[in-house]
């Protein structure tokens, strides 16, 4: 298990809350991801995020594979989710 800081990741998944809120109507940092590399599952907020980069790169804290990438262009946001098998989003009131 790796922790942010040990590997150079300055931030955790909470750092993506603002960018992801513009794409989704829910707080995605509370959703659970499943890593496509190792099937580890946890809250998006626990991902290790590299932000000193041309985009945000969120890696699995268990295997360090890339789970999602966010790239902001002037007029759009790209979200690449190929490193995530699924997102499990809790429903309000449940």
């Amino acid at each position, binding site marked *: 298990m790796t922790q942010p800081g040990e590997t150079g990741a300055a931030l955790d998944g909470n750092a993506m809350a*603002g960018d992801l809120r513009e794409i989704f109507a829910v707080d995605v940092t509370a959703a659970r991801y499943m890593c496509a590399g190792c099937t580890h599952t946890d809250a998006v907020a626990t991902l290790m995020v590299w932000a000193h980069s041309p985009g945000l790169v969120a890696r699995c804290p268990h295997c360090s594979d*890339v789970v999602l990438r966010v790239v902001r262009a002037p007029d759009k946001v790209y979200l690449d989710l190929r490193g995530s098998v699924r997102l499990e989003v809790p429903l309000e009131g449940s």
Partner: protein
Amino acid sequence: MGIISRGFGGRRRESVPGLPPGQYLTHDFPVLSAGPTPRIPLDRWRFTLTTETGDKTSWNWTEFQALPAEDVTVDIHCVTKWSKLGTTWRGVSLDTLLADVESEAEYTMVHSFGGYTTNVPMEDLLDGKAWVAYKFDGEDLEPEHGGPARLLIPHLYFWKSAKWVNGVQLMPQDEPGFWEAAGYHMYGDPWREQRYQGD
């Protein structure tokens, strides 16, 4: 509002000779990274060219150091808008590495330790336009800047100059690499401001 600024396409700076549109000058050397910095012992370093038919040519560190090297002074331009002029490097030209390789491929995928990839057309690697560099400013290239060796392809945005490079796959068709698949431009010419898809 997110934690990073809205894109990199916005305001114009004053015109400086050698500075592509939308760029500003920096005198330090910012470190950008999409993951942990790999530490590659030189006895485990290897660089491999793989053709479209699967033929491989590779060099270990000792063999690579024995190849003819060139000293080059070039300007570098990062898509995050900083440019650094007159940087000095030492490395092996891709012309040297590809000299004896039989291939019809028009595209390549550059691979790095740590899993990073970036696509570059074959013609952009040839004719004195690209190097595998292992010294910067007269010193061994530090791991934070891509050491032991990185690609240096200064006529394209610097995300194409893959850190910790360990090979080039020759391909008949173009495919996106790490950043290109996530929204960045397939080619990345700083003089045409090819930052994002569609630019």
